[in-house]
């Protein structure tokens, strides 16, 4: 594997502080976060709830601007949402209910001006086949199960062939069995096409299984705690502990600090 220094990162996040307003407070979601994502990375942002990982992903998506720092994709500063960063959300309602599976995938391609007519349809069907939904191409979203909807959303994201695929806990609302299957399918898809994905999760096993690089964030506000490598097998570290235990200990250390400062 070539050293990262000889390659330019695809996504650079430098000193990003994100704040949003609620009715009563100004909430700081992340504080001066730095990280870099390289091409074909399966980059996982892991942390407990409240560490600002979803907010960070939304900012990369272009839905909010950092109050401090900047984010660059291919050296261009991210300012607004765009089709070069396709989002896959956790919610099942991300598919347009008035379009069939095929039309949902096609619409992304046509409305962003990537492809037209037959070409869009062929590309859409190619990716619908990749997620094994060819039989359901003409079904409407409300006729599909939760797992199938997420597969359509992934097909839609991948069909756009974006620079980076942004996934916001896409499997969190699924049952354990389906989640397991979807994780394997995602890895399979990655083996086929080697897309770049930035994946947000709060599940340690999911992060260890899916990521090749794991960014660990601490909560309130989110700050970078560590960046770890994973080969998907939950490898044993030099101190005899497996990776997931090591991560768990680091996250628990946070929780205990929280307890003592708050209590």
């Amino acid at each position: 594997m070539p050293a990262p220094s000889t390659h330019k990162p695809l996504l650079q996040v430098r000193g990003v502080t994100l704040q949003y307003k609620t009715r009563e407070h100004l909430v700081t979601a992340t504080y001066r976060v730095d990280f870099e994502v390289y091409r074909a990375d399966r980059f996982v942002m892991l942390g407990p709830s409240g560490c600002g990982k979803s907010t960070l992903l939304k900012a990369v998506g272009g839905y909010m601007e950092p109050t401090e720092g900047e984010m660059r994709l291919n050296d261009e500063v991210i300012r607004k949402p765009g089709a070069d960063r396709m989002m896959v959300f956790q919610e099942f309602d991300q598919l347009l209910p008035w379009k069939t599976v095929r039309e949902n995938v096609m619409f992304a391609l046509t409305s962003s001006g990537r492809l037209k007519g037959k070409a869009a349809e062929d590309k859409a069907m190619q990716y619908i086949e990749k997620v094994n939904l060819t039989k359901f191409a003409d079904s409407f979203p409300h006729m599909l199960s939760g797992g199938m909807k997420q597969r359509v959303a992934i097909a839609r994201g991948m069909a756009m062939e974006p620079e980076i695929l942004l996934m916001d806990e896409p499997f969190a609302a699924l049952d354990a069995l389906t989640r397991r299957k979807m994780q394997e399918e995602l890895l399979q898809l990655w083996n086929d096409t080697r897309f770049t994905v930035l994946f947000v999760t709060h599940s340690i096993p999911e992060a260890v299984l899916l990521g090749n690089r794991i960014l660990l964030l601490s909560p309130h506000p989110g700050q970078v705690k560590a960046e770890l490598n994973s080969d998907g097998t939950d490898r044993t570290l030099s101190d005899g502990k497996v990776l997931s235990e090591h991560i768990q200990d680091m996250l628990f250390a946070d929780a205990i600090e929280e307890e003592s400062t708050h209590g």
Partner: protein
Amino acid sequence: MAEAAATTIERPEFVRPVETKAYGVVQKPLTAWEKIYDSGTARKTFLLVVMAVAWELYARWLASPLLFPTFGATVKAFWDAIADGVLPHRAWFSIKVLLQGYAIGLVLAALLTAFATATRIGADLLETLTSMFNPLPSIALLPLALIWFGLGNGSLIFVLIHSVLWSVALNTHTGFKAVSQTLRMVGRNYGLTGPRYIVKILMPAAFPSILTGLKIGWAFAWRTLIAAELVFGVSSGSGGLGWYIYENKNQLEIPAVFAGLFTVIIIGLVVENLIFRRIEMRTIRRWGMQT
């Protein structure tokens, strides 16, 4: 107590073969009665028949054709008026005016809502205007309309626009505001902005409440029109259904009055059950937005 909790009862594990055939009855055909009862058309037809019979019986018992003609007499007057072409002509006159007013009202509502979606001051304008004018009965504007536009279609269309515009604009605006954040983000992710974003994302996503607005607007318009025609309906020698009702009342042709009302009701039923129901079936029901 502690001992009982500590010891668990040993049980053997088991694996059972699953029955793959011979489930017994899984599907059973419905009986003829169940099928009839399942059809909305059949249930509604039955209700209509019951009401017609009740009308007939009450009118016969009352035996006062001048106050309350029988169902039979009304149907006869209805057929006669259709046969000599008076009623279709009057109904068409009303519908033509109605469609003009409705169409102009929809265009204005679309413009107003687009402005309200695009800017915050637009939203304030829409909210203020609807809260001012939505409760104002259209018919109350008729005297003013008569002064401004004179006796004629102009005045009718003016009050019709007033009755359509606010309910459609208000419902559409409310619908837009209720579109889920996820769908909005999906639309922006594709790079959709401005009118394309409104037409391709907001309008379909808000279609259930837009359709409600269209229905309410239609009903308001229809009511307003008949009421306005009762006040004045003659323009260049012809008039609409409201005027037909008023005329026949003056001549004490009570069955014809009922026939006029009957026509208003039938047109309402047709529009609701044929037009709006079809739109509903093909859109929001098909998309699973309404059950």
